[in-house]
């Protein structure tokens, strides 16, 4: 875990100190502290409404904090906003590409607005189209692009001016698994080049795959930070997952096995699912099967797993990092945006 007091602002790529922001009655950020060293990938993990997007919008100068301060590449996000804009890149929740322009025109426009000049803008657009496998579609209107292509174009646009710090707000939201994995490769390559990346996601797997360190936020507060391994340590050892055939027997099954765990089992009645933190691996597995058999509970599925970040999230917050909050998000935020 990073001790933010030992890192002076200026030596880190991103420093956030006690940042708060509310929208009416909704406290989107409630005193967030964060440090991202140069060249690292930070995964900002949390459910909808956790405050991820609000934090990204503050760090990219789109929004001012109510209180607290933040620096990106040593520049104050409020006072040095206009200088800061020329050295950061942002790919937001929407693929913000102009559907009426071609892929090439989109990138050239962004280049011109970064004040790269006409010639350099054209050159850079060509480079990025090549790199993001869009060269063949470069002269087609962006509205004809697939979801994955639009995301790649959006990401390319955020890289036009070789940003020192890159902000990716849920870069793979709404993508099919294949496009998602494709985009992961692209992000990994960027990290290899030494770009500092702050990436928000609600997918545990995504943070696990891409980030050097993960910061978990919930209800506008940082609730944990560390490497993926460290966070998984929160959950103790392995996780035994049981799925019963008859959901009405879920509680019975949970009672039967609870003594075998290192902690209380987590029961998802509606799915007939029990997650039990255990120590002792395969021998416990056999014992669980025996007990459930004796109690007359039919098992649909049983597996012993390393804890996932889902488990971590559950252990930290007491609720699932589920996407079912999507409706609340619309209700709590008039702009229909993740706050």
């Amino acid at each position, binding site marked *: 875990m990073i001790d933010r007091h030992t890192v002076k602002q200026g030596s880190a790529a991103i420093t956030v100190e006690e940042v708060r922001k509310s929208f009416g009655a909704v406290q989107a950020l409630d005193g967030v502290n964060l440090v991202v060293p140069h060249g690292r990938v930070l995964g900002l993990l949390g459910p909808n409404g956790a405050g991820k997007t609000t934090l990204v919008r503050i760090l990219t100068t*789109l929004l001012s904090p109510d209180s607290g301060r933040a620096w990106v590449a040593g520049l104050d996000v409020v006072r040095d906003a206009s200088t800061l804009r020329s050295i950061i890149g942002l790919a937001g929740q929407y693929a913000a590409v102009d559907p009426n322009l071609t892929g090439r025109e989109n990138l050239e426009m962004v280049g*011109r*607005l970064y004040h790269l000049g006409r010639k350099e803008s054209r050159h850079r657009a060509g480079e990025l189209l090549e790199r993001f496998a869009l060269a063949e579609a470069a002269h087609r209107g962006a509205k004809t692009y697939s979801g994955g292509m639009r995301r790649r174009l959006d990401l390319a646009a955020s890289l036009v001016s070789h940003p020192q710090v890159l902000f990716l707000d849920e870069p793979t939201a709404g993508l099919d698994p294949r496009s998602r994995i494709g985009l992961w490769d692209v992000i990994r390559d960027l990290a290899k080049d030494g770009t500092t990346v702050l990436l928000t996601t609600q997918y545990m797997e995504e943070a696990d795959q891409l980030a050097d360190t993960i910061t978990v936020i919930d209800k506008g507060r940082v609730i944990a930070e560390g490497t993926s391994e460290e966070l998984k340590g929160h959950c103790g050892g392995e996780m035994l997952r049981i799925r019963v055939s008859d959901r009405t027997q879920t509680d019975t099954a949970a009672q039967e096995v609870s003594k075998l765990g290192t902690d209380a089992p987590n029961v998802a009645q509606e799915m007939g699912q029990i997650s039990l933190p255990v120590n002792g691996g395969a021998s416990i597995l056999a014992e669980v099967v025996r007990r459930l058999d004796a109690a007359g509970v039919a098992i649909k599925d049983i597996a012993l797993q390393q804890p996932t970040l889902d488990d971590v999230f559950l252990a930290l917050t007491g609720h699932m990092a589920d996407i079912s909050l999507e409706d609340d998000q619309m209700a709590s935020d008039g702009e229909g945006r993740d706050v």
Partner: protein
Amino acid sequence: MTTSMAVSIRKQIGWTFSDTMVITHRNLLRYVRLPQLVAFFTIQPIMFVLLFYYVFGGAIDVGNVKYIDYLLPGVFIQTALFGSTQTGVGLADDLSKGMIDRFRSLPMARSAVLGGRILADSVRTAFVVLLMIGVGTLVGFRFHDGPLNAVAVIGLAVLCGSVFSWVSAFVGVSVREPETAQVAGFLWVFPVVFISSVFVPVEGMPGWLQVYAEISPVTVTVDTLRALALGGEVTPSLWQSLAWMAGIVAVFAPLAIYRYRRIS
């Protein structure tokens, strides 16, 4: 002021101009590439000229001028105002699609988003007015008071459209949804256009309506255009028209900019 400050200010102005041009170009491409917009801005004005001319032409008494000569300056303004509703629709579209977020995260001049939108819409209005002059000429329209006045007619029509673009911009950044912006646009543009001398002399309206119709910004502007096109007394309607336009910009430009800055 030191030299380096002067240089940096000059540079700033240069970038603002360049950013505005980039955004204007981008907005114009949208008009060219969306078939429904191409239809809206070419077929519709032509249709209006021909419809009003052939359908109303025989029924409306406008005194001793040809109806097409009376009608066309009115249709210029009608089209300019209808077109100005698209300023708000375009801005709301950019907002809802996240384009404005992208622009605001770039080191570009912030004024270029609004400026480039209104400039593009002014170019489009100029194109549409020229198109209508072409079609109007085919059915008998003529400028009666020289080419200089003809240029003034086009200029004033375009200016009027860009003035109302500020109203539309305010609506667009307030409602933030292109569909809502479209509906909201029609809500203000219809009464503003029709309660005026655009199609018929205001004398035929009921007394209470005449009170507004006679002094409406559309009436005084159309009267100015008619005076310029047909030959006649241009003042005082020109001054009234310019005063209205200055007033509308003075109210709605700050409102639109205020709303735009408060986007979060």
